[in-house]
């Protein structure tokens, strides 16, 4: 066993040392993702700027009492200076909010007299205007504070703060500066957020498989074309270890791509969430809730399944590569296979698909379904165990089949000339020694 790991490490080290010096592989696996995501972020930024410019033209209606207090009048005056808030006096402002006639209401609390902006957090339209109101008031407060401190030397305590509280009235809860997670909101958005997270994982795995194509072709088909394969096969190492070493090296390249892409995806997600998606407190609460609901076991399962997925994909790609007659053929086979695997990912992500006894028998897809079931908190131990065991077995089989294939003359020698399909079997018996 010690020798096995020693040999494996030596093979992996050599393959990585080699592959890191191949410009094509680095370009496809690392550089393109590094360029792609900044481009996407610039695209998202341009869209965001366009969206913000368009939003400035929008006028938000807010309800105020028919007889507003002085405080309310003062805040309304501030909001009106933005040119985007139209106050509408109403007999029952909160009712208008619930009926979605206005996006919010501004009134003084009957008990304390404090100003409150009431809104319905479950409304899709509420986020941006509420953020706008909050930002405007905050800016005004800061402006006043700064002006006063500079011009009159008055301390902060002497100022009359705007003290406007945001209050979600959709569930008729008591007022909070940051309201508790709204059940309706969580029901609506939590599945979407989970789906988004799964989509990101599936995207990264698909990307890993695509990134594995180029190193796989290079490490097997192209090694044959460069005529180094014969020398490699005569090295004092078992061919299974050799193939596994190559598969681990291919997986490492795929993981490198995942790492680079993860940074891109994380930045993109951060950018989208902070710039484009509504920033209501409940969104934060929902995200926090989802993060808190993920147990270390679930994270472990997702990481294990992802690593297995990448290693199995690498092994399968190497095996498919060993079936090819030429490097070009290997590239074609692997690109088609990689696209097929993306198709499997999309299929697994569809809402109807779940990890069952039947789907647990389909390699790769079952790993994705485990990730999906863990992500949605619907996994059960036995199918998960079967899936992991099955895929490990498949890695073992794929490695052995590839190693077996390496020893066939139709692979080692000029592939096109000596290749034969399984049905082109030997028809003659081997002549006896006297022949």
């Amino acid at each position: 066993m010690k020798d096995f790991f020693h040999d494996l490490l030596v093979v992996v080290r050599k393959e990585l040392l080699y592959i890191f010096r191949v410009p094509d592989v680095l370009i496809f696996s690392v550089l393109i993702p590094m360029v792609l995501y900044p481009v996407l972020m610039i695209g998202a930024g341009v869209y965001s700027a366009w969206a913000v410019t368009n939003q400035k033209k929008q006028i938000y209606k807010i309800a105020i009492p028919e007889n507003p207090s002085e405080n309310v009048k003062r805040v309304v005056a501030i909001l009106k200076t933005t040119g985007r808030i139209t106050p509408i006096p109403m007999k029952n402002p909160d009712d208008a909010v619930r009926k979605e006639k206005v996006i919010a209401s501004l009134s003084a609390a009957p008990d304390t007299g404090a100003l409150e902006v009431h809104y319905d957090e479950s409304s899709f339209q509420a986020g941006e205007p509420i953020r706008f109101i909050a930002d405007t008031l905050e800016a005004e407060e800061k402006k006043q504070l700064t002006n006063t401190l500079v011009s009159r030397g008055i301390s902060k305590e002497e100022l009359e703060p705007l003290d406007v509280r945001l209050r979600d009235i959709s569930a008729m809860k008591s007022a909070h500066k940051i309201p508790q997670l709204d059940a309706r909101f969580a029901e609506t958005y939590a599945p979407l957020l989970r789906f988004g997270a799964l989509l990101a994982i599936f995207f990264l795995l698909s990307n890993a498989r695509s990134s594995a194509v180029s190193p796989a072709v290079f490490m097997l088909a192209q090694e044959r074309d460069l005529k180094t394969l014969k020398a490699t096969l005569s090295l004092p190492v078992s061919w299974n270890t050799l193939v596994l070493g190559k598969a681990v090296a291919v997986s490492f390249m795929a993981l490198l791509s995942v790492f680079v892409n993860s940074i891109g995806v994380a930045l993109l997600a951060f950018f989208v969430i902070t710039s484009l998606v509504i920033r209501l407190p409940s969104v934060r609460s929902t995200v926090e809730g989802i993060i808190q609901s993920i147990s270390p076991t679930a994270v472990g399962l997702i990481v294990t399944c992802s690593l297995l997925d990448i290693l199995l994909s690498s092994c399968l790609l190497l095996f498919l590569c060993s079936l090819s007659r030429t490097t070009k053929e290997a590239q074609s086979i692997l690109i088609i296979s990689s696209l097929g695997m993306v198709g499997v990912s999309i299929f697994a992500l569809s809402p109807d698909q779940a990890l069952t006894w039947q789907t647990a028998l389909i390699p790769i897809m079952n790993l994705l379904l485990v990730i999906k079931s863990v992500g949605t908190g619907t996994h059960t131990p036995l199918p998960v165990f079967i899936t992991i065991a099955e895929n490990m077995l498949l890695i073992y089989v794929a490695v052995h089949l590839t190693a077996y294939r390496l020893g066939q003359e139709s692979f080692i020698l000029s592939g096109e000339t000596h290749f034969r399909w399984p049905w082109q079997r030997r028809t003659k018996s081997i002549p006896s020694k006297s022949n």
Partner: protein
Amino acid sequence: MTIRAEGVKKWFYDRKRGEFPAVDDVSFECKKGEVFGLLGPNGAGKTTTLMIITTILKPDAGKVEVNGFDVATNPESARLNFGFVSADAALYDLLTPRETLEFVGKLSKYPKEKLAARIDELIKLLDMSSFADTRCQALSTGMKQRVAIARALVHDPPVVIMDEPTSGLDVPTMQSVYQLVRQCREMGKCVLFSTHIMSEAEKLCDRIGIINKGKVLAMGTLSELKEQYAKSDLEEIFLAVVGGIGGNENNGS
């Protein structure tokens, strides 16, 4: 015996010819401290025989042992006992000679503490100091062949198998290869040397096996062959054994 081949057969398939024998009942032995030459025209089956001995291909029939290890049933142990030099050097272009030697040395379980010294020794022996840390893609054919030989010797194996190692080399480099083969013999190694160049076989080999169409047609020391075929030099013996032009046209590998 360090190499023993008995009744080895290998059949190939190609689209034009279908099934054909590439190696047909080849038997020979190669002893410690001996250079055994496998002499034959192009496509005679030399490379295929060597690929079977080096465990790259599996024989369809027969048995091959390297230092007592059966290449079909115990290939990994057999591989530890030989070093292989192929005709086209077949180096990893993007590695340097030193990295290549380290890779093979580590896989061969050569003692870790002695490996660096062994590599330095080979670099000095094969006059590779000036390009030991240059990527192989930038080396000339002669330099590459020296690296390939060093790779075969890095783990100090008892058997060295060379498949047309002087192919494409200039005269000085060829001479250094010959010198190295002689050194291997002096060190008590068993050298299996495949070639189609008569003078090479005459100069280097203690015994010669002439192979054509996958069969070993004649075998013995140079003097034995001269006596057997009543010819004065190896070229005449070779033509007498193999025949003229077209003697190998049905074979390939």
